[in-house]
């Protein structure tokens, strides 16, 4: 595979969330508002890219039996750095994200990419793969966060976008969108649209 397809495939054809079905937990939990969704995406991109590079650098020295533990330690180290940085510079958002920053460690995208790509490829393609998959993840997160915040609270990034005259005419925010189950339905709708355009991804 060329570096270009390594980087661009995860955007749509091989999207980590809606095609590989990895890392669903955080997509559902942090997308009530757009802002935490964006912060979460950036953290995942950073951790994914650097852990891919590190694992790829030491891939020939890791004994196969304990590779999962080695991968976990590398990822955990990076996540600790990210969570400390967030606590220092974006305390409010890190409070909103609560346990989900810690849960980046067990985000299946990380383990999936480390196992499937970084263990068998050179550092530079691994870096591209990490950034590409991170962006693929971010795309879904931002779409879900956008619709949930718009329909659920009528705001975007905290600013009101639904005009007051709508509310006066009887428009009401859809409280259901704030509840966690609606995140699942939103992702299901994204899958529906995506697979209607990519027929080869449909299951029999």
């Amino acid at each position, binding site marked *: 595979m060329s570096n270009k397809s390594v980087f661009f495939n995860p955007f749509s054809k091989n999207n980590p969330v809606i095609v590989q079905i990895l890392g669903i937990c955080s997509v559902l939990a942090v997308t009530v508002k757009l802002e935490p969704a964006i912060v979460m995406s950036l953290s995942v991109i950073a951790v994914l890219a650097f852990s891919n590079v590190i694992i790829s650098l030491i891939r020939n020295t890791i004994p196969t039996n304990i590779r999962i533990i080695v991968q976990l330690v590398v990822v955990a180290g990076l996540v600790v750095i990210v969570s400390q940085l967030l606590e220092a510079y974006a305390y409010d958002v890190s409070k909103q994200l609560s346990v989900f920053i810690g849960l980046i460690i067990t985000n299946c995208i990380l383990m999936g990419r480390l196992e499937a790509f970084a263990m068998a490829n050179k550092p530079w393609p691994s870096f591209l793969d990490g950034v590409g998959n991170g962006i693929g993840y971010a795309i879904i997160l931002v779409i879900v966060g956008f619709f949930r915040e718009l329909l659920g609270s009528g705001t975007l990034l905290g600013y009101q976008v639904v005009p007051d005259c709508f509310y006066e005419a009887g428009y009401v925010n859809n409280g259901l969108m704030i*509840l966690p189950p609606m995140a699942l339905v939103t992702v299901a709708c994204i899958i529906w649209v995506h697979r209607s355009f990519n027929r080869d991804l449909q299951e029999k």
Partner: protein
Amino acid sequence: MDNLNLFIRSIFIDNMIFAYFLGMCSFIAVSKNVKTAFGLGIAVTFMLTITLPINYLLETYVLRSGALAWLSPEFADVDLSFLSLIVFIAVIASMTQLVEMVVEKYAPALYSSLGIFLPLIAVNCAILGGSLFMQQRDFGSVWTAVCAGGGWGVGWLLAITAVAAVRERIAQYSNIPGPLRGVGITFIITALMGIAFMSFLGIKI
């Protein structure tokens, strides 16, 4: 009484799948038939019930700020909480290795049907999530931690078994639009069940 209450709460109200959506990856991948789903559910329950108390003890006596004071008063201002993520995940990973060996020895059929998902329990968010919630919530004693862990595990087991049963039927009898088949419809089933589980909110024993 409080512990029993917490146990029931953890199963129904704080359900790992329907309320927090933790452990979704293996949940989606393994819920194709009831038998495998049940096996994985048992494994997850077991892992949660043992790792939560272990992590609770580590948190209380080693990691929390001032937790080392029992060693000697000089350590009263040591705060190791930034290490908690690494410690928790190390405990979970090593316990997984242990469970894997036990299952391989005593239940080879279950071992082969779980396949890759057994080692991946280590990265099941539900288990690390349990420990992180424990850290946030200040449980009173080890027993509280055991009850919460057991409850979350049973809740996860209940959820994956129920959804697997629905999926088995759907695969046989329903004509679902092509793009939604498989993963898509599973998301919607889970969402509907999640809404149903909200009716448990506010129940007290």
